[in-house]
């Protein structure tokens, strides 16, 4: 298993501003992912964070809005840029140690945009 620390755990932000969320894992992992969970809904994959290269984004998500970094095998950041109330969600970091196994999740960041 893995201990995944996400910061901040929650935040209230003004529209038009940006927030960077950090994800720190206590051991090296193969894959890191970022998900969004809108109120009362399931998880939607935003992107796969690739170490040392640009993230791979899912349909409907773009780098300008959700820039992602992954400088090493244990750390990643997700920035939510130029926020609007529609960005109010829980953002979750997830990791895989290897393919075809279970994913582990951080506690999530609850973002409210006002």
């Amino acid at each position, binding site marked *: 298993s893995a201990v995944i620390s996400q910061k901040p755990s929650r935040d209230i932000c003004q529209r038009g501003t940006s927030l960077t969320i950090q994800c720190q894992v206590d051991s090296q992992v193969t894959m890191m992912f970022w998900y969004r969970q809108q109120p009362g*809904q399931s998880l939607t994959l935003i992107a796969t964070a690739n170490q040392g290269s640009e993230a791979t984004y899912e349909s409907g998500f773009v780098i300008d809005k959700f820039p992602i970094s992954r400088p090493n095998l244990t750390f990643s950041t997700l920035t939510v840029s130029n926020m609007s109330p529609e960005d109010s969600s829980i953002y979750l970091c997830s990791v895989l140690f290897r393919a*075809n196994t*279970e994913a582990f999740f951080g506690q999530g960041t609850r973002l409210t945009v006002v």
Partner: protein
Amino acid sequence: AQSVTQLDSQVPVFEEAPVELRCNYSSSVSVYLFWYVQYPNQGLQLLLKYLSGSTLVKGINGFEAEFNKSQTSFHLRKPSVHISDTAEYFCAVGGTYKYIFGTGTRLKVLA
């Protein structure tokens, strides 16, 4: 392509009663199936997983699930629920690296 359908958005059940949360999937590749639980204001915690082998999978907190390939189902069961089982439950299908989650079932255990 893969997809997951959780047929019940909410399931109320009395304490100590049995419960079944339904999950159906579709996948054109090898199937890896998971159930996660999310307690209020927390991340997702793995309940159990099916990767291969026995089709009856036992997980934490007394939950179990049965992989049924012919019916493409992976229903979650518990013979006797507790108040503390009140949470959101997500079924997920994985293939290699990507995971697709169902829309979730809110289990509410009543006293």
